[in-house]
């Protein structure tokens, strides 16, 4: 601002009607280049572009104002160019140059410094962008929890080492190798990278590498923002712990390392296990073991006891008792059924006996006796009838005979004369001789006569 004022005051306008282009251009060139031999300009980069010939062009702007700027390829500050980008606020060092032919005024930049974040931040951002895959948390190696050997890369005389050793002293059964390096200044990053490579190559039994240093200025920490650090840590087979710089700000080394600790003290606490803590843990484990085993055994004891009770409950006595009862029932039933069977048979026999009794032949005998009596009577009466019939018949025959008796004529007065004693019937007198006896039959009675005389 001060320099601007000076420029205006020294440029006195000469009274002239007109100027030629050349006059005014030369005048401007003179005015600008004379008044601003070298200067620092603060502004924001815009319209950044790279030309074929390697020159870099951009505008420096501030609100409405803009200044064309360029870096010649021969001049350009190689370390910064990669970090340039639109919108970046920078402080540029250089001189103003007016070009007659084009009438342009360019600020020829010799050096650029970022404003705000600073160069380290820029570098960090750029390196992060470049090696993005390497910062993937998944790539990070796990640290052995109980290392036997670790290596520390640090300055032998720094406070960091003192702090680290103080914490780790007899904290664990551990071998600590110190790899002394410079931790600041030109080329320190090369020593550190070399150390990482050496340890990887020659001390393979080292389990953790710790890179540490105390806090310092940006300049001091510059080695930890280098590509060398990234590449060596990336290639390390041994996990790397970084405890570099500020507690708040992470260096590139912090980011690429497998673990970052804010301070050397914290690193020691993190990397070196605490035997007291492990003792405590083991003590707890012991107690837990005891408790858990007790639970297991008690559970089994309880379980077994319950099984025992159940088994005793299910002893075969119950079955035996039931079976005995069943057998008693069987006995009872058997006797009962046999009794029933016998009773049935007895009642059946009684019934049959009664039936037989009813069939007693007595009845039949009586019946037959009756029948016989009847037959007897019939026989008697039959014979009687027979005889009576015969008698009656005989009687009638007799009567008939009587009625037909030749002697019936005697009733009428006839008589029958028979010779006597021979009884011949005398039908004619001739048959009679004198003196002969004759019997004369009358109807009633007869007489014996002697023939006196025969008349023929």
């Amino acid at each position, binding site marked *: 601002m001060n320099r601007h004022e000076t420029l205006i005051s020294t440029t006195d306008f000469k009274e002239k009607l007109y100027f030629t282009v050349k006059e005014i251009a030369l005048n401007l060139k003179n005015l600008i280049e004379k008044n601003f031999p070298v200067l620092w300009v603060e502004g924001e980069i815009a319209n950044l572009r790279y030309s074929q010939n390697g020159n870099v062009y951009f505008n420096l702007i501030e609100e409405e104002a803009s200044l064309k700027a360029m870096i010649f390829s021969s001049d350009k500050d190689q370390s910064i160019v990669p970090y340039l980008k639109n919108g970046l606020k920078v402080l540029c060092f250089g001189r103003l140059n007016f070009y007659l032919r084009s009438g342009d005024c360019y600020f020829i930049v010799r050096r650029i410094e970022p404003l705000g974040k600073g160069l380290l931040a820029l570098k960090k951002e750029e390196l992060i962008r470049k090696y993005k895959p390497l910062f993937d948390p998944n790539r990070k190696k796990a640290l052995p929890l109980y290392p036997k050997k670790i290596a520390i890369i640090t300055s032998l005389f720094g406070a960091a080492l003192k702090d680290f050793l103080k914490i780790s002293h007899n904290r664990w059964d551990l071998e600590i190798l110190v790899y002394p390096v410079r931790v600041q200044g030109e080329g320190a990053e090369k020593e550190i990278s070399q150390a990482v490579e050496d340890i990887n190559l020659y001390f393979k039994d080292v389990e953790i590498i710790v890179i540490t240093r105390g806090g310092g200025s940006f300049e001091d920490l510059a080695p930890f923002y280098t590509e060398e650090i990234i590449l060596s840590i990336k290639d390390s087979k041994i996990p790397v712990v970084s405890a570099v710089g500020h507690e708040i700000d992470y260096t590139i080394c912090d980011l690429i390392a497998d673990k970052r600790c804010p301070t050397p003290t914290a690193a020691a606490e993190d990397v070196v296990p605490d035997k007291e803590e492990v003792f405590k843990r083991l003590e707890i484990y012991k107690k837990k073991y005891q408790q858990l085993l007790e639970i297991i055994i008690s559970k089994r004891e309880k379980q077994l006891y319950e099984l025992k009770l159940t088994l005793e409950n299910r002893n075969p006595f119950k079955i035996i008792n039931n079976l005995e009862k069943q057998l008693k029932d069987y006995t009872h039933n058997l006797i009962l059924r046999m009794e029933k069977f016998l009773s049935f048979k007895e009642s059946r026999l009684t019934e049959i006996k009664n039936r037989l009794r009813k069939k007693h032949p007595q009845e039949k005998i009586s019946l037959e006796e009756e029948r016989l009596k009847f037959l007897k009577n019939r026989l008697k009466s039959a014979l009687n009838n027979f005889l009576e019939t015969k*008698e009656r*018949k005989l009687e009638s*025959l007799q009567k008939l*005979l009587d009625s*037909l008796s030749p002697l019936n004529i005697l009733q009428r007065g006839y008589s029958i004369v028979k010779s006597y004693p021979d009884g*011949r019937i005398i039908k004619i007198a001739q048959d009679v001789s004198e003196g002969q006896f004759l019997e004369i039959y009358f109807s009633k009675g007869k007489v014996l006569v002697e023939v006196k005389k025969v008349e023929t």
Partner: protein
Amino acid sequence: MIENNKDLNFEEALKRIEYILKQLENKDLDLETAIELYEEGLKLIYYCEQKLKNARTRVEVIIKEKEGFRLEEFEKAIEILKNGN
């Protein structure tokens, strides 16, 4: 005409009597014959009467016998019956 009447059984006797009665009904019958027939008839009738009387007596005897009967006797009787027949 009159055969051995002893051999004549009751029925034959009766038949003979009936025959005699038929003869006697003949008016032309010779008196002597008639008287002979008549007498024969009378005798046959008597004979039959006697037979009947005997029969009745025998029946009574049989009935009486039965009461004094024993099984042995019965069997004897059976024997007698068999042989007697």
